[in-house]
């Protein structure tokens, strides 16, 4: 018995691996991908970029206005989503839900919201409320519930039970107890998740213009349609810079909220020491004077100024964005009417097209995941500071990855489509590039988390660096690598459902056409099938993840 026993678990894993490989090969053939189109595609993109260069920064007023509108849309949409998500999360969390029916309904809403991409919701909402940012904001708000609601539910469920028992034993009512014990524990995650989603929503709102839902997407689309490539590049680079800046600052902010108290107020040791001493004095004074309000420590001042800054931005956004917020509630009626028109779904009228679209969507997702993984792995090795122990190389790679993550994949798709023409191949290449850098970051983080002790042990036996990598690093990182690949597949599949809207292949094109010719019931059928496919992949993913752990 010198090989591992054939347990059912191993057989299942082998089966999954075989299916995954088979699906990838089938996908590769289905979208007629070849190595020459693969490398030719990158060539074409390079030529297009050279042609676009240098960007023309005239008419900047329009670009800046559109960029600001994009930001405001993301801010308002995320805020609305947080407001909607909080009650849903309390209903969907096992430890706070009032009853089984509420639990099921809240869970279903959160799952459904996640399954339908923002761009598709926006396309439908634009029909109901007209061209402009309102449709986009509503779509962002609705789709974000999927992620924010899920993260909030998990935050509530992971709150420790001990304080809850203690407070409820004092005779406090259920909601008094929840507010006193669970909410304070969950608040950092609440804020962190909202910031993270804001970051994603800025990217998403940058492309909403394609379906007429406001933001800079419309400017880019118009420039590309007019073959005005230099101006398009100018708009793309502006939004790229803005997105990267927002990502960096939101990461920094999140680290200081979720991390230890007042962690990232200042990096200067001396200044920090001084502020700690001052806080200490303030606290002492408050205690001796028997002050009954929280004293103004630097942490509290920081927190209050963050809240005021956010409130100021939100007010500014609501004032400057040109939508009548109050009367927009009147549009709810329209939205319900349009949504009702999607039923009953009609699977028959466009049956062959629908089947082709769905299969193409799946195929794009698989090929983009594998290609993305091939790019991500070497990058991740360079970016993990415990593998390549050279500061210049790993920080350089990290910066490079961060820079490329800034471009929303749909904008990459637009560029590829412009360079190579319509079809699934440019869409696949765009998804590959769009997700490879994100994937590389995830893998690099995983590699950095690997425990050092087994590595030392292997080195001590006289192993080479590559032997050590395969013997000590890879086995430790494997479960995470698998689940990250599955996660990437999940993300790519969701993205590939909307690629068609910019001409990148998949079901999105058919969806947009059906919307244009007002075949609402076909739209309904497509939405349901998309949901089924996305949800099936998600379930499959969580099943395989359990198998690996």
């Amino acid at each position, binding site marked *: 018995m010198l090989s591992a026993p054939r347990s059912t678990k191993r057989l299942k894993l082998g089966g999954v691996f075989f299916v995954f490989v088979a699906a990838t090969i089938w996908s590769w053939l289905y979208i007629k991908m070849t190595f020459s189109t693969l490398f030719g595609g990158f060539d074409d993109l390079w030529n297009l970029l050279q042609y676009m260069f240098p960007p023309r920064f005239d008419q900047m007023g329009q670009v800046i206005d559109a960029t600001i509108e994009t930001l405001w849309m993301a801010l308002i949409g995320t805020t609305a989503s947080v407001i909607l998500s909080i009650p849903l999360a309390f209903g969907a969390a096992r430890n706070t839900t009032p009853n089984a029916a509420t639990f099921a309904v809240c869970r279903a809403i959160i799952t459904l919201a996640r399954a339908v991409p923002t761009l598709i919701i926006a396309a439908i909402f634009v029909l109901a409320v007209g061209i402009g940012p309102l449709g986009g904001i509503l779509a962002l708000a609705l789709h974000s519930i999927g992620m924010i609601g899920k993260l909030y539910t998990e935050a509530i469920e992971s709150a420790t039970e001990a304080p809850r*028992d203690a*407070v409820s*034993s*004092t005779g*406090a009512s259920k909601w008094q107890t929840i*507010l006193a014990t669970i909410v304070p524990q969950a608040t950092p995650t609440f804020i962190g998740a909202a910031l993270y989603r804001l970051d994603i929503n800025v990217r998403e709102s940058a492309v909403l213009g394609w379906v007429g839902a406001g933001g800079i997407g419309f400017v880019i689309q118009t420039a590309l349609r007019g073959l005005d490539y230099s101006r398009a590049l100018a708009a793309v680079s502006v939004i790229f810079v803005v997105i990267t800046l927002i990502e960096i600052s939101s990461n920094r902010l999140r680290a200081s909220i979720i991390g230890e108290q007042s962690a990232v107020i200042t990096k200067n040791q001396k200044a920090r020491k001084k502020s700690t001493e001052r806080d200490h004095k303030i606290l002492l004074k408050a*205690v001796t004077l028997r002050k009954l309000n929280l*004293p103004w420590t630097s942490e509290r001042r920081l927190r209050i100024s963050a809240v005021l800054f956010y409130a100021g931005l939100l007010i500014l956004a609501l004032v400057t964005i040109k939508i009548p917020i109050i009367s927009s509630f009147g549009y709810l009626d329209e939205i319900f009417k349009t949504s009702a028109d999607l039923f009953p779904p009609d699977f028959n009228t466009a049956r062959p097209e629908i089947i082709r679209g769905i299969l193409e969507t799946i195929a794009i997702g698989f090929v983009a995941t594998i290609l993305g993984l091939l790019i991500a792995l070497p990058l991740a090795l360079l970016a993990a500071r415990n593998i390549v122990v050279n500061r210049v190389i790993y920080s350089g790679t990290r910066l490079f990855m961060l820079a490329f993550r800034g471009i929303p994949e749909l904008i990459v798709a637009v560029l590829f489509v412009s360079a190579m023409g319509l079809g699934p191949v440019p869409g696949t290449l765009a998804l590959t590039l769009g997700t490879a850098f994100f994937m590389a970051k995830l893998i690099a983080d995983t590699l950095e988390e690997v425990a050092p002790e087994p590595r030392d042990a292997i080195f001590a036996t006289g192993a080479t660096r590559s032997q050590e990598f395969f013997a000590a690093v890879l086995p430790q990182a494997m479960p995470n690598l698998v689940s990250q690949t599955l996660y990437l597949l999940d993300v790519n599949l969701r993205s590939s459902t909307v690629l068609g809207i910019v001409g990148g292949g998949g079901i999105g094109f058919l969806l947009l056409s059906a919307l244009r010719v007002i075949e609402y019931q076909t739209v309904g059928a497509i939405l349901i099938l998309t949901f089924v496919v996305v949800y099936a992949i998600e379930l499959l993913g969580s099943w395989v993840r359990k198998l690996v752990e």
Partner: protein
Amino acid sequence: MSKIFSTEADPIVSLTKVSKRFATGTLALDEVDLVVPRGQLLSLIGQSGSGKSTLLRHINGLHKPTGGEVLVMGCNVGDAKSKELRQIRKNIGFVFQQFGLVGRATCLENVLTGALGRLAGPRYGLVSYPKALRREAFEHLERVGLDSQAFQRADTLSGGQMQRVAIARSLMQQPVMLLADEPVASLDPESSAQVLELLLKISIEEKMTVIVTLHQVELAIDWANRIVGLRDGKVVLDRSAIGLTQEDVMDVYRRADRSNDLAKQEAEFPKSVASLSS
């Protein structure tokens, strides 16, 4: 309240032939009789699994007896309705081994949560509590010696300090009685002594009944007025702590089934060795 506590002589807790058999079939309490007068610091001792925590949980109605009668402040806990039960719990402070503080909230806020039973509606943050209550909370913190930490986050405190904040929170309930379930089990000796001294001080100054489960006999002898020993759900010792020696309580810790256990272990030992070498 005044009706319930007509005279000082009334026992606060009185258990008559209380038995508890869990759904799993374990007999956790076996016909326990116990009468606790006002102002006593009583320590329940016994090995883990002897039923001391179960007994404590019968007093505030977290468990209901399967036999016998539990009278707390004149109310039969066994068949109390949920509203009555809540009223009883409001009057009983409960101190947990794991403190149960909200780490991210300040000490003052943690103490204030003890007043929730007296308030209507949910509260969040210091300012949502009336000023008078905030002042009261401050006084309780002063009493447990942690007023200078009032505005510090609870997770910056040591274990002993956390337990004292938890006691301040119980006092905020204005309880008639304190129950403490292994309050010093996860503390070092010095903090343990501080916590028990605090409980004794409260019981003397407020004439408050305090029932505390402990597994360290020395601590029980040092701090309690009365010691009740449980073994396999039965009361095997019940006397004043004065003059009690370690030897007197050894009987509590002699488990009836110990010899059986050893025999069982020995019987299984060869098997486990065999499974290792295969």
